[in-house]
């Protein structure tokens, strides 16, 4: 089991009010699964994603990622986990605007101290995998939306993470480009990556092998195809 969530609760305290975003999530995800997490606004979808991505910690419960208990980790340790185990792909790409595609992809390697020559090689490989070798030195503003997202995917891959966590990856793309990106994910899945997709679009979720639906902080349905 790559991911094990046991009785996860997450509460937010806003002044006098407490919002119970997650109210007891139990979830297991295996290596090389292709999972989609769906749910309406307020279902706790974003909160669950932040938790899975180790951007935040649960108020209660246990989260085991690739054997390590990350439930209670401090900021520095979480940062390390994120760097090693998680590959993020965001809806709005979140690339550094003033850096080349290559440098963007190198970024996770910089933060684990990979020496320069190795960095370059690994980054170039990742860009090759997403078919952008000829655009390595372009800046994001010189790339199309689809190309930018590819760079983001390459960045997500470069550290060989346990999971690729994609939050509405096609949200800012037109249908055709979006399909291209989904094909890319398919390829990565075939290659052995574990993919977790967070979306509210049914037809995007259909690409996955298993759909987990959330409602009001609970898992409402968990269906494999």
């Amino acid at each position, binding site marked *: 089991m790559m991911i094990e969530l046991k009785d996860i609760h997450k509460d937010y305290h806003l002044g006098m009010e407490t919002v119970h975003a997650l109210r007891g999530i139990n979830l297991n995800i295996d290596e090389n699964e292709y999972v989609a997490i769906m749910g309406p606004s307020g279902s706790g979808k974003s909160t669950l994603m932040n938790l899975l991505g180790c951007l935040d910690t649960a108020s209660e419960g246990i989260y085991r990622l690739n054997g390590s208990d990350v439930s209670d980790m401090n900021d*520095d340790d979480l*940062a390390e986990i994120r*760097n090693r185990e998680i590959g993020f792909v965001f809806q709005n790409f*979140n690339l550094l605007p*003033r850096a080349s595609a290559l440098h963007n992809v190198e*970024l996770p390697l910089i*933060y684990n101290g990979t*020496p320069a020559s190795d960095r370059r090689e690994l980054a170039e490989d990742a860009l090759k995998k997403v078919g952008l070798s000829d655009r390595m030195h372009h800046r994001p503003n010189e790339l199309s939306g689809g190309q930018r997202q590819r760079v983001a995917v390459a960045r997500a891959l470069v550290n060989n993470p346990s999971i690729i966590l994609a939050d509405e990856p096609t949200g800012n793309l037109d249908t055709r480009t979006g399909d291209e990106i989904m094909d890319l994910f398919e390829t990565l899945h075939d290659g052995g990556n574990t993919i977790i997709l967070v979306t509210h679009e049914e037809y995007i979720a259909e690409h996955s092998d298993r759909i987990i639906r959330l409602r009001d902080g609970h898992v409402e349905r968990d269906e494999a195809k």
Partner: protein
Amino acid sequence: MKYSWTEFGEGVRIALQALKANRMRSVLTTLGILIGVVVVTVIISVIQGMNTYVSGELSSLGTDNVFVSQYPWMINSWEEWLRVRKRPKIEKDHYEFLEAHVQLAEAVVPEVVTRRTVKYRTQDLGGVFIYGTTDKYMIISNAVPEFGRFFTDNEIHHRRNVCVIGREVADKLYKNKDPLGKRIKIGGQSFRILGVMEERGQMFDFSMDNNVMIPYTVFLKVFGKHRSLEIQAKALSPEIVNELKDELEALMRRARGLRVGQGNDFSVNEQSQLLEVYNNLTKVLWIVLIGIGSIALLVGGIGIMNIMLVSVTERTREIGIRKALGAKRRVILWQFLVESMFISSIGVILGLLISIGLATLVKQMSPIPVNISAWVAFLGIGFTVSIGIFFGLYPASKASRLDPIEALRYE
């Protein structure tokens, strides 16, 4: 704590990029620091140069000379002036008494001065200092006649109208002619020239060759007995100057018939007091100017803090991205500290360059030997690092503590 070089390199890269992207803003920010650095550096260097210059010039006065005068050299208040102006003048008898009894001095010399026009035939020379003194003048002032001789005790005793002239007087009045044996008119009286002093140069821009020495007995006769003498004594060695001061004070008190408990009605002065006066003046200068410099640096530092806060806000999303990708807090902290150190270093480097330029200018336009010494460069580096860290710490710390989730949501 392991800081990898790659993270350092990334921090530097980001800082350079940010500065390039906001050139105008960065330059304006450093202005305060630049001004502060220039003010502090130039003033320190100029004052140091002045110190060297002044003590150099003063040292030609002689560190082993003590002066017994009617008034103190430095009068510090109106009340003090009211007290001292009633003092009796120093007379020939006092000098003779001191001269006869002093033991710790190599020589004791009376001196009385005025400034007159001297004449040779039809030629006038104005503004010449006329010194009434004895032949011991040569010991005290460390100068001897280059041509001819000084007057003797005998000539002093018999009040002969003889004199020794300074080099400048010789050159200007007698030009190519040999002045020895010729006459010179001083104060309406004719004097025979016995000798010409060697060239002595300048002290503080003041020529020491524009003078004529005559026997003090004659001086008092020609220019009136109402003048006070100044008695100058050279100590046997510089180490016993203070003892000589005490001895002269005691002798003078006897000469004046002062009882125990009565204050001195004369002053004993010496060269180190001049230096003290000078130091007191510059002390105030130091404080004022370093105050101004420090305020400018403070303003500059606050400017840096302000700009860095803006920079952090502008890059909120970017900070979120970096954190999401694994950048730890201290990495983000470091990134922004590097940027603020860069900005302050620009101000310091430019400031130092301008300081060197100004110092060179001052050196060329005045006799003051201004020098920007090497330690100033180290000071500059120290400033850069401390200002950059101190004023950049708050914004950098804010950046490092951003919540990545919030930061990623920032528009």
